[in-house]
């Protein structure tokens, strides 16, 4: 019987034939951490070892609170920089790089067939390029630094067969929200999610990153697209190492297959306070918002900023709304400067922030007071995540965010086309 991409990638790493349900021990290709490296370093020290085992596999990206918002964060960053120097870690990205989940693909770490683990729940993003990528805990990360080894349970796979075509004004983000809304935030608990079907190759690498990123909100361990010509072309000039692409066999065994036709899909929004509380934008249109956030590891790429700029160009942000724009990385920042997207956003009255997580995790740069409402292009809308307990977060696509920024109320982006 054939194998899924996940079974093949983990089997190759483990050096044996593996099937879903089995537990394997592997030496990962890369181990990611971010500002939480400060806490991981403390765990690592407790292990009583001086040196990490494989310095070249450790990738640290400062992105969560950059630049440091207070002394505590500054101290964390300092201790990380010192550790990087002490251990001679070659892959360190300081506060002028971007969000880890954008930096790793851009910098050619996220490659087909690799095993990447990270102490961040949105590590599955790298599946967009055909890697096996999964989130792990902090203690496990410290132990992996020390041993260059981690155990993983080979997940069963849910295949989502995409057919049809997205209509204008409808994006990968709407698809992910619709799927989570229909099937619940645990629809893929501990599973691999394969995005496949005749429409899968139509998705840009950016859109694939959005979908793989949002697979974490389905409960998935990893989410991926088979690496095709589009992915390989995108990797040209970026890939840091040779790689061997892997895809599922035609007769692979899936736990379930979910068909989805894109033709009828409308813009969606996740309402407070869970990601699976999803409605069509039309159902909540008119809801006033105080703030709009365009950015994050889910939707802060060039195509996202351009989708927002297409609506905001020549228009003004509504006077009662604050609009925060955060390019996902410095590379995106520079590209958006070059393309004119950033100029259009600034002219419209948006505030541009340094590449990083911004207010997404509720630490700095635009937190909400009680009773305030933000429409955000991020991936989580849990109560209090972006400020006061009694503030509200709606999740949507960058186009919906831009339309909402102009109108001051949740608005269907198709009204601007």
């Amino acid at each position, binding site marked *: 019987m054939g194998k899924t991409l996940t079974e093949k990638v983990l089997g190759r790493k*483990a050096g044996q034939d593996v*099937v879903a*349900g*089995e*537990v*394997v*021990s592997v030496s990962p290709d890369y181990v990611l951490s971010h500002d939480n490296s400060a806490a991981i370093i403390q765990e690592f020290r*407790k*292990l*009583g*070892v001086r040196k990490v085992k494989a310095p070249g596999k450790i990738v640290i990206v400062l992105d969560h609170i950059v630049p440091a918002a207070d002394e505590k964060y500054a101290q964390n960053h300092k201790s990380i920089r010192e550790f990087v120097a002490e251990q001679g870690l070659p892959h360190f990205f300081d506060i002028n790089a971007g969000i880890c989940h954008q930096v790793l693909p851009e910098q050619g770490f996220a490659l087909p067939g690799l095993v990447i683990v990270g102490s961040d729940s949105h590590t599955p993003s790298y599946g967009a390029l055909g890697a096996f990528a999964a989130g*792990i*805990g902090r*203690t*496990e990360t410290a*132990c992996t630094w*020390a*041993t260059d*080894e981690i*155990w993983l*349970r080979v997940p069963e796979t849910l295949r989502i067969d995409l057919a049809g075509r997205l209509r204008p004004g409808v994006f990968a983000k709407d698809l992910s929200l619709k799927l989570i809304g229909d099937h619940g935030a645990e629809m893929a*608990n*501990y599973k691999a999610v394969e995005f496949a079907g005749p429409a899968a190759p139509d998705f840009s690498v950016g859109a694939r990153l959005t979908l793989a990123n949002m697979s974490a909100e389905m*409960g998935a*361990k990893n989410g991926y697209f088979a690496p095709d010509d589009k992915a390989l072309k995108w990797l040209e000039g970026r890939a840091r190492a040779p790689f061997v692409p892997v895809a599922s066999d035609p007769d692979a065994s899936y736990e379930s297959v979910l068909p989805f036709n894109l033709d009828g899909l409308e813009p969606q929004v996740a309402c407070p306070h869970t990601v699976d509380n999803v409605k069509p934008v039309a159902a909540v249109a008119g809801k006033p918002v105080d703030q709009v956030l365009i950015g994050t590891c889910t939707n802060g790429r060039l195509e996202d900023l351009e989708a927002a700029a297409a609506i905001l160009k020549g228009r003004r942000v509504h006077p009662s709304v604050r609009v925060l724009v955060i390019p996902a990385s410095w590379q995106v920042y520079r590209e958006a400067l070059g393309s004119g997207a950033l100029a259009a956003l600034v002219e419209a009255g948006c505030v541009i922030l340094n590449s990083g997580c911004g207010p997404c995790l509720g630490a700095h740069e635009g937190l909400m007071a009680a009773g305030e409402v933000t429409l955000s292009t991020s991936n989580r809308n849990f109560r209090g995540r972006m400020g006061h307990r009694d503030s509200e977060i709606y999740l949507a696509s960058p186009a919906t965010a831009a339309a909402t920024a102009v109108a001051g109320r949740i608005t269907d982006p198709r009204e601007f086309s």
Partner: protein
Amino acid sequence: MSRGLVWKYGDNVNTDVIFPGRYTYQIMTPEEMAVHALEDLDPAFAKNVRPGDVIVAGKNFGSGSSREQAATCLKAAGVRAVVARSFARIYFRNAINIGLPVVQSDEAVDALETGDPVDLDLGRGEIRSAKGTFRFRPLPPSVIGIIAAGGLIEYTKARLADREIEDQQE
């Protein structure tokens, strides 16, 4: 290899009934946690469980919160392993990382009932009972090492101690 008796439960045994939330923010030793194991599901369990006993359950064992005590309390109560149709994601990782074997076997769950004597062989991937021998994919040696060492931290420390000695010999 060990012999114990089966404690059989159904689907969706969640972390709240394995280790009640009202105790989660009290600092307790593992032995104190063991007294409350499965308290809200089966009050007879903690009083009567013997070292080497095995929990057999249905789907999605350990769903709910990520509290590590829900694995620690069973291990401290002497539970040799949990055999289930499936486990909640975080529970599975927590259990192995604190040294509690978790094994998936539909056949064993179908056949076994409370009170059945069972042997468990992790290395060979076998559950043996009067009702038959049920096979599961054996765990890799490093994971058996984690369980044998009593958890990921102890295992890693032991491995590293070996490495330091090697380093000194180089």
